[in-house]
């Protein structure tokens, strides 16, 4: 069966390469957009306890929404294709990054911030030199969760014409063509596992040596 799947890839190299590329581009762009929106928003929200509470509440609701429901809701509004898929996947990536940015910053020891201020650091310097580095492991964990979720969500983008590896799976299920299902399912699983592993390694390196789990 694996050989059949491999033969399918060899017979359709351009189609496979395009689907793989679209999948990575869609996921990567959605993650980058989500991070560009959620990290500054999280930093701003973490300043004020009341705003932080509201942001956490909103993100918690966002996190519970089923991925396919979000993709499906975007379709009647924006139509089908790459851009609507990118929009929906960006929405899916926001909550974990926002939640972990706020949690990471709120978890910084207030004594350390006090000490930095006492040393005469400006608020901006305290943020960039003290708070963000200390919050980084938690923030990055949010990015990791979002990355895996977006890659998994991008498979569902096939339903609204987003392309990517999900196309092979949906076509395979529709025609009950097992090799084609494998051509989609195996690479996308490896992509998710590989991303999770790679982000995990970076997360470990970002954690100060004294705080690392053995």
């Amino acid at each position, binding site marked *: 069966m694996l050989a059949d799947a491999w033969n399918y890839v060899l017979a359709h190299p351009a189609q496979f390469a395009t689907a793989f590329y679209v999948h990575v581009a869609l996921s990567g762009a959605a993650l980058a957009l989500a991070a560009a929106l959620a990290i500054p928003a999280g930093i701003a929200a973490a300043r004020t306890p009341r705003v932080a509470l509201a942001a956490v509440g909103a993100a*918690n*609701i966002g*996190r*519970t*929404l*089923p*991925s*396919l*429901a*979000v993709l*499906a*809701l975007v*379709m*009647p509004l924006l139509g089908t294709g790459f851009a609507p898929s990118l929009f929906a996947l960006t929405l899916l990536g926001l909550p974990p990054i926002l939640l972990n940015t706020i949690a990471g910053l709120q978890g910084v020891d207030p004594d350390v911030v006090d000490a930095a201020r006492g040393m005469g650091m400006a608020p901006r310097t305290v943020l960039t030199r003290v708070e963000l580095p200390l919050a980084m492991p938690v923030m990055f964990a949010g990015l990791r969760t979002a990355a*895996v979720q977006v*890659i*998994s969500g991008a*498979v*569902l983008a*096939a*339903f*609204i014409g987003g392309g990517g590896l*999900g196309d092979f*799976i*949906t076509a*395979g*299920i529709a025609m009950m063509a*097992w090799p084609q*299902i*494998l051509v*989609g*399912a*195996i690479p*996308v*699983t490896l992509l*998710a*596992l590989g991303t*999770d592993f790679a982000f995990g390694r970076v997360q470990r390196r970002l954690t100060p040596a004294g705080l690392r789990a053995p």
Partner: protein
Amino acid sequence: MTWLARNWDQVAVALGQHIVIALTALVIALAIALPIGIAAARSARVYTVAIAVAGFLYTIPTLALLALLIPLAGLGRTNAIIAMVAFALVVLIRNIATGLREVPADVVDAARGMGMSARQLLWRIEMPLALPVIVAGARIAAVTIISVTVVAAYVNAGGLGTLIFNGIAGDHAPKIWSGALTACALAVAVDGAFAFAERRLRARSVG
């Protein structure tokens, strides 16, 4: 909105199916995760292996796992429920093990001193004290399962996803809205209900 008003019975049937499938999966996942979680709380090695395996399953994209299970379980509910259980295990095992480990050692000591057997200790002392953490895990698991159930309509499991897929296939926006919004409302409601239960349990164990 007029479509929903005229076809609310269709939505209600799909919602009913959705709840039944999700609940079945959650109960099975709890039944599997409980013994593993208890063993993982006692042994660091069991914990590491269980979390690694369950974490691997959790990382597999939803639609990929549903598709990969077809030769094993065919199309339909069995397939969907196996996939949901696979996705729910990691958070349940982690929270059961963490909850049990966080029970204060002096409480366990006191119970032993009173002559409780290991079994009594587990069910009368440790489990009740770990319950808030376990419910927190069940909350995330339930929301995950509801989300997977939406996709599972594609492998003929039924539920609210059916409306979404029929709506997409027939380019019928009201059907898509009805299915997707009902699924969102269900997820938010279940999350809220578990959050409420969790808060009540925590308040009780503190007071």
